[in-house]
């Protein structure tokens, strides 16, 4: 076991997979000699060389499309989108080609691309370096969407993504990169794509979160514990495919659900989870399902007071839990 940061776990996982499978290669903006703007590919260029770690022009649609074409030809591409905010430029290749390739060819082609992108706010980066836009992709059949909160999961989900046959988008919250560490086992492991993780067992309220919200959720659940409310925290580390079963089982136990995410409320993925629960487990609900989200404004205003106001945090989550419990 070695204590490893979130970002290092991802870099290590990438390197281990590239040693294991020579069809894996990686490309994107500033990922070569520079090692990524966050150090998210540091050292890979030096170990694997310019054929397998490729600096691209500033062309996000190309980056995604290189993934599509090379994956169809049997490679295992890792397409790096420097900021999730820039992924809008790659939407044609991701949503119309990568996601649809299997379907539109009647199963004739596979397109196992791994897209890595860094996301999330709270680091004073403004409207174009803070978004987490998972909802765009959760709404796109054919894609899988994963969003780890721990270094262990980040490495394990990355490895799992490189060992299956569908396109996967891995969201890496920039605030987790260096502030989160885990004991990472020496041996090879994967974290399967699909199952959610129960981070804390509880009896009174189910709290569903992912990415950096997991930390806020655990903080909130400790606050609530002092108030005598037992909170079960579900880390929805895979958004799609949806682990409905874990969600519903937890609701059956607690009778109350709060969903928190950094994205704005309307059309956010929390709404989908709430709808599943309302449709399939209504009889178990003792209170309305509540969401803690960003307001419906463009994400994320720059100035510090506005950014803090914009983002969900432990206090805001605790407040909504109280409301749910008091219902």
């Amino acid at each position, binding site marked *: 076991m070695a*204590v490893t940061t979130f970002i290092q776990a991802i870099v290590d996982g990438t390197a281990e997979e590239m040693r294991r499978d020579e069809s894996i290669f990686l490309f994107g903006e500033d990922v070569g000699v520079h090692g990524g703007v966050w150090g998210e590919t540091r050292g890979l260029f030096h170990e694997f060389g310019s*054929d*397998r770690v490729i600096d*691209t*022009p500033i*062309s996000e*649609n*190309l980056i995604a*499309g*290189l*993934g599509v*074409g*090379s*994956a*169809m*030809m*049997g*490679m295992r*591409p890792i397409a790096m989108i420097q900021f999730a905010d820039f992924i809008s430029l790659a939407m*044609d*290749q991701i949503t*119309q*080609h990568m996601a*649809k390739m*299997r*379907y*539109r*060819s*009647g*199963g*004739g*082609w*596979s397109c196992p691309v791994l897209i890595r992108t860094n996301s999330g706010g709270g680091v004073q980066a403004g409207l174009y370096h803070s978004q987490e836009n998972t909802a765009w992709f959760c709404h796109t*059949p*054919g894609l899988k969407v994963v969003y780890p909160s721990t270094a*262990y999961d980040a490495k394990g989900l990355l490895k799992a993504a490189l060992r*299956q*046959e*569908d396109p996967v988008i891995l969201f890496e919250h920039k605030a987790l990169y260096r502030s*989160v*560490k*885990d*004991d990472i086992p020496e041996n090879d492991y994967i974290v*399967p794509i*699909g*199952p959610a993780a*129960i*981070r*804390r*067992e509880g009896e009174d309220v189910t709290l569903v979160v992912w990415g950096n919200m*997991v930390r806020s959720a*655990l903080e909130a659940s400790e606050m609530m514990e002092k108030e005598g409310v037992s909170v079960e925290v579900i*880390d929805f580390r*895979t958004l799609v*495919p*949806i*682990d*409905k*079963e874990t969600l519903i*089982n937890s609701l059956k136990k607690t009778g109350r659900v709060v969903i928190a995410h950094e994205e704005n409320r309307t059309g956010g993925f929390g709404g989908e989870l709430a709808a599943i629960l309302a449709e399939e487990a209504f009889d178990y609900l003792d209170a309305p399902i509540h969401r803690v989200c960003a307001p419906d404004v463009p994400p994320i205003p720059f100035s510090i007071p506005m950014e803090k106001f914009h983002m969900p945090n432990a206090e805001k989550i605790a407040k909504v839990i109280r409301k749910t419990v008091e219902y």
Partner: protein
Amino acid sequence: MLNAKQKGEDMMDLNKEDQRRLFYRLLLCRNFDEKMRTLFRQARYAGTFFSCVGQEATTVVPTFLARKEDVVGPQHREIGACFGKGMPTKYIAAQIYARKTSPDKGKSHPCHFGYPELNIITPASTVAAQTVIGTGCALAFKIRKEPRVVLAFTGEGGTSQGSWHEACNFAGVHKLPIVFVCQNNLWAESVHYKFTSAIIDYSDRAKAYGFPGISIDGNDVVAVYEESKKAIERARKGEGPTLIEMKTYRWYGHSEVDPANYRMKEEVEEWKKKDPLPRFEAFLRKNGVLDDKIKAEIEKEVEEEIEAAIKFAEESPLPAPEEALTDVYAGNQTMIYERPKAEKVKPEPIRT
């Protein structure tokens, strides 16, 4: 603009049998296309049909030159690329009829011909996207040092896309084994090329990407053959991409539901005189490759192949409604996670 015949080239590297085979494919493409237009008007299949009549040489000939392992990236009007590459006609027909036997099992669209067995990428309707995907394929070949080549097709309209620029730019930087074929048929659906670019020869665009560009008469089979061959060989030798603009013309509307009223009748008539098929036929007759007897045999064979393909399509079953739910993920997974029976859910507390 180059014309191969002016340079005295004459397809000498193709034996007579292969020249006849090429003629066969061109005629098959032409007659099949005309037949499909008729069948559409008889409502024998749904959707619409994107005729390539008039511009067959630009797709049939380059793909005829490609090897099985080479990749073709077509878009909606490239039915000829399927005939050139040798995709069985019955599957082309099944695609148009959206039958269960179609390579896409009826999922995409009658004009989205793809055939993984021959490395024809199933296309989509966002124009020029296949040039980006083709660039990705070419990158894979370069990394693995495989002598495979990509032929990526667009019309002149597609070169206005940012994605086309991104593809050419990257392919140029890495000298990728790809040939960008631009079929300039003057009209991007209803918009004349004078309103979509300020240049006359689209091959000029290649200068910006550091690889050669050439503009040729796309209705001259011999010119298309020679220049495609050079570009493919160049790509295969690792010398990088080529942009070939093939000036041509579609005789009919954008699709069968487009009467093409935006064009002058005189323009259409003028281009019909430049029909690539009679020109190639004259060339073959002059060289003693084709005569009345051989042509009649070829026509008969083409007719039989078309009839058999239509019969196959019309007798093929339609897909079952619920087949709409398949082929989304590998192993027919869905957007809902299905927990394997053996998998136990146990708490996973944060480890630090």
